[in-house]
């Protein structure tokens, strides 16, 4: 079992080589009586897709929020794209972006207006051209001038993805990117994320409850339970260690504490 890093180096055997997009060392987040994240360390290589798994309350959203700087850790260190967070967040916020079910785009503004505003906030050059490009890539043409509040869930997800990609981020943080989507739209989103990673050599960290999604997309999986890292390996490595055919079975084993796995 991977552990909550005893060395302080925040590295595990599963980390691919190469410069890190994210380095988290001994992260702790304490909310009054609740320890949401408990001494978590990991290092995410640039150009990789990493899945953050765990049940409700496992600490996934808090971990991502700390990486983004929306939540301050109680203790521990985070470096994003080589800069310490949150002290140097101004240096990296323009190079990263995110999508989360905890935020919405303004409902009364049209899709084009929303993308224009976020494009300007991220100082995107040739913004009109970039919006045309995103509209074409993410199939937004039919509702580009419709208010965001009048879109279907699938359309809203595509718009949120367009916003997350407007600045062509080097690092993309996604919190349940396909939650509440039908299988077709969800598959379409996954395909687009894979393509974006390949074409932009981007790093993606995604929190998800969808095991199929994680198996398909991720080079590496970190499983959290009660704020601590329970597993940290490639999907195949984890499945082999648990002698399971898919991540869903592994997830249930971990969540219910059913299997004793020898430390790797």
């Amino acid at each position: 079992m991977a552990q909550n890093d005893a060395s302080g180096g925040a590295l595990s055997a599963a980390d691919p080589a190469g410069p890190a997009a994210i380095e988290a060392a001994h992260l702790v987040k304490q909310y009054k009586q609740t320890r949401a994240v408990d001494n978590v360390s990991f290092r995410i290589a640039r150009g990789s897709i990493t899945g953050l798994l765990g049940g409700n309350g496992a600490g996934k959203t808090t971990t991502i929020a700390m990486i983004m700087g929306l939540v301050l850790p109680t203790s521990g260190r985070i470096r994003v794209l080589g800069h310490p967070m949150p002290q140097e967040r101004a240096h990296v916020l323009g190079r990263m972006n995110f999508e989360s079910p905890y935020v919405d785009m303004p409902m009364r503004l049209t899709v084009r207006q929303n993308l224009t505003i976020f494009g300007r906030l991220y100082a995107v050059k040739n913004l009109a051209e970039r919006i045309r490009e995103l509209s074409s890539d993410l199939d937004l043409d039919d509702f580009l001038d419709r208010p965001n509040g009048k879109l279907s869930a699938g359309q809203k997800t595509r718009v949120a993805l367009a916003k997350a990609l407007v600045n062509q981020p080097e690092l993309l943080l996604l919190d349940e990117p396909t939650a509440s989507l039908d299988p077709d739209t969800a598959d379409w989103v996954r395909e687009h994320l894979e393509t974006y990673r390949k074409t932009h050599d981007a790093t993606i960290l995604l929190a998800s409850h969808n095991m199929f999604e994680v198996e398909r997309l991720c080079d590496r999986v970190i499983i959290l339970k009660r704020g601590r890292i329970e597993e940290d390996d490639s999907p195949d490595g984890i499945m082999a260690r648990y002698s399971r055919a898919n991540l869903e079975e592994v997830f249930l084993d971990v969540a219910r504490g059913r299997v004793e796995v020898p430390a790797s």
Partner: protein
Amino acid sequence: MSELSLDRGISFQRIGAMILRYWYLLLSSWPRLLELMYWPILQVITWGFLQSYIAQNAGYFARAGGTLIGAVILWDILFRGQLGFSVSFLEEMWARNLGNLMMSPLKPIEFLLALMAMSIIRLALGVIPMTLLALYVFDFNFYGLGLPAIAFFCNLIFTSWAVGIFVSGLVLRNGLGAESIVWTLMFGLLPLACVYYPVKVLPLWLQPVAWCLPPTYVFEGLRSLLTDHVFRGDLMLWALVINAVLLAASFAAFIALLNSARRHGSLLGGGE
């Protein structure tokens, strides 16, 4: 863990983007536009008729023509200025858009500057029709006050921003459960700022408290101008000094509340 500090340098492009965001919102919603004008017009009509009645029946007020209606207009600049600031901030909370903004390169100072600009735009939409109504229906020319009107306006708008920044910080930290403070806090200043009566009316022990508030100097200045025809520059300077202190304190409080919101995870929710 280190917290956020104020980064140096601001981007006018980002400030412009935020102003555009609120402008799009205003244009997309006629009730929002109507609301900006509705209350100021209602106020000036109510108080204008009251002033007309008093002027016909009381010698002092007849001589001090426009004292009441002038005070109503200045009070609305103060109140609407703060609302213009705070409501634009609340729009982000209502839209659950704050996380997007906080994760973008937009700096807190740029966000606040955009909100200040929006407070002036919203104020203009509400107060200009109000002053025109006062001119044509009640024969009170606010613009005829000349340069003192600019001094009054600047001091009141500075106070409204200071209150708006502080209140927005409270909402940021405590979520929409603190929204009612946005609508009510300024009314707490109404009796102490001596909007409709001179400071000497207050009990002696309360007068020093009143003189701690910049609007008190403005309303005293207005009465001095209309009744004695004297512009009290000294009052305006005192108001300016106190406003500078209030603005610095409110900005420091906003940053402290933002950091507290990050510590407590309030930025993830923003709800009740």
